[in-house]
């Protein structure tokens, strides 16, 4: 038997690990697969039982995307389907753009503010440093829903309801503690001697940061920036309560509003969901090397 030899046992172990990974992967990817597959199916096919797990060419259509981008009800659709396309579907594309704009600005703020803040928390001792840091982390413990009403009133008084600026401010406040926390941990893994060497090599603080600290911390910085982007991009509670029009509505708010009607096209909702997945997916693919590096720091010592 193969299990009686060491190499056989090792191979059996490998196969087991592989099987478990496949199961986990299927579990995680199945809903996404279902959404993507649904977005390309005719509405009528979506109501078939059993459902089309692996749709054939007969039920394939791009009508849902066509409507979202043009607002024109596809001429070849049935009367029933025409009534199911709500005009809110055309907001999906501008809402995704809103989300990208807001998340990008939040990311930039996280880098510009969070990076030096984390560096200072990691490298310098000052009066009350630990308390300030803990307080910062403690803000993460508040559930969004518990402050959203207060925030609503605050923004109402400031006349900032339904603005992108309000969301940028709130998302920065939400993401910064996390960014500072992981970057601070990252700095603890970078020997302080690099910075001391830079000092002796004639660098003042700013030059030391740009020439030595930023390059050394780059994987961590990119990982933190991506986390900040993802968190802002996918935020729902504040987005849905503090926005009203497409002036500031994000993709989460619009997506949620699509499914409110009783007879909304499910294919269109699936198409909208598929589109909203694309930006973070692209980001993750482009920076996958850095995300991994950020989580497993490697330094040429």
């Amino acid at each position, binding site marked *: 038997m193969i299990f009686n030899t060491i190499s056989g046992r090792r191979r059996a172990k490998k196969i087991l690990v592989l099987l478990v990974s496949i199961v986990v992967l299927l579990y995680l990817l199945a809903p996404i697969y279902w959404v993507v597959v649904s977005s390309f199916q005719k509405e009528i096919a979506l109501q078939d039982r059993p459902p089309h797990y692996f749709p054939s060419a007969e039920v394939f259509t791009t009508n849902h995307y066509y409507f979202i981008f043009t607002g024109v009800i596809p001429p070849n659709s049935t009367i029933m389907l025409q009534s199911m396309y709500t005009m809110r579907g055309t907001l999906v594309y501008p809402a995704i753009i809103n989300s990208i704009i807001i998340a990008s600005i939040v990311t930039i703020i996280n880098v510009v503010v969070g990076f030096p803040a984390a560096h200072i928390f990691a490298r310098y001792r000052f009066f009350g440093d630990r308390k300030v840091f803990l307080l910062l982390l403690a803000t993460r413990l508040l559930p969004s829903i518990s402050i959203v009403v207060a925030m609503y009133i605050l923004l109402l008084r400031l006349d900032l309801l339904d603005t992108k600026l309000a969301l940028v401010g709130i998302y920065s406040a939400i993401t910064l503690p996390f960014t500072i926390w992981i970057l601070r941990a990252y700095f603890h893994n970078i*020997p302080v001697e*690099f910075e*001391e060497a830079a000092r*002796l090599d*004639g660098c003042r603080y700013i030059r030391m940061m740009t020439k030595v600290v930023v*390059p050394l911390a780059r994987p961590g910085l990119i990982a933190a920036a991506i986390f900040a982007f993802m968190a802002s991009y996918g935020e729902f509670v504040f987005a849905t309560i503090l926005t009203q029009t497409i002036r500031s509505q994000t993709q989460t708010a619009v997506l949620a509003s699509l499914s409110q009607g009783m007879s909304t096209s499910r294919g269109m909702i699936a198409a909208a969901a598929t589109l909203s997945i694309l930006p973070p997916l692209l980001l993750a693919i482009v920076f996958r090397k850095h995300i991994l590096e950020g989580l497993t720091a490697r330094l*040429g*010592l």
Partner: protein
Amino acid sequence: MAFLRLESITKRFPGCLAVDRLDLDADEGDFVVLLGPSGCGKTTTLRIIAGLEIQTDGQVILGGRDISDVPPERRDMAMVFQNLALYPHMTVFDNIAFYLRNIRRPKDEIRDRVAKAANRVQIGELLDRYPDQLSGGQRQRVALARALVRSPKVFLLDEPLAALDAKLRAGMRSEFKLLHKSLVEEAGGVSGTFIYVTHDQVEALTLGTRIAVMNEGRIAQIASPSDLYRRPRNIFTATFVGSPEMNLLEGKLQRANGDAVFRFRNLEVDAGAKGLAALGRAKEETIPAIMGIRPESIHLVRGETLKALDAEIVTLELLGQSNLLMLKIDDLPLTCLANPDIALRENERIAVRFEAESMHFFDPKTEESLLVDEE
């Protein structure tokens, strides 16, 4: 006035006094080694000189100017760190050129100076590599080149050889010595001052022109290598410098007919001129003393000699150029280095003689040498 001077430097960390009123002078061209066990404050002292640590009290004076408030980037000192701290994201060339770029030297000058410094430590062909593509010894050289390219006022070296394996370390040690020598020769004695921190006495004795032995934040003794070995001023220096360690025997030093003898247990050895000097102007005929004798100053005597002591060999270690003996004289343990040509066995009884000219005498209370005003 000395080129670099530390005046009464004190550094207090929460719950610990790292450096305690330390004074140190170093001239241009000096190679000063701070030698001591770990935790004695030697690295802290170095970091204070660099400005990476701010002293609680005292002054750092460079070229007659108090630089205590000058930040590290404006002190014109180069440092080789224990972990070398080569910038991993820069090539060897960029690592070496970093300082010159920071002070905005022209491109041609940077190229020439980097090439010169790199050639000096034989890494001229490695300039395009990254630090993680280099061997331990090569990285060491890059770190050195990074300091050399600057011609700084002070070179600070923090256990630079600690990361290397034993064989490489010996090679780099000789290179350091040659390097320092050639730098001083080229500059006609006015090259930068070297301050070198180590816990390795071999490094200290071979490299230093002056060695400051540190213990618990203070300098126990500062002297040339040979003086340090031959004339230790206290028990700490006597036992810390020299390997195997100096033997210490507690007893009494006594005048006897214009001569001096050292008595311990019920034994007696000739203390010679050193003994007389240690007795010095003391009015008493007998003073308590601790006698120190290095293992190589204990000689085996064959045949019956009047003044020999009876000893038993407990263990015997072959070191190659000599044999290390653990002896017992009347239950007192002693170490002795013996000529390897003499055939010896463990548990054998032999006769030994202490070389009177190589004895050291210390005050048992203060642990200071009784031979300070010998000259």
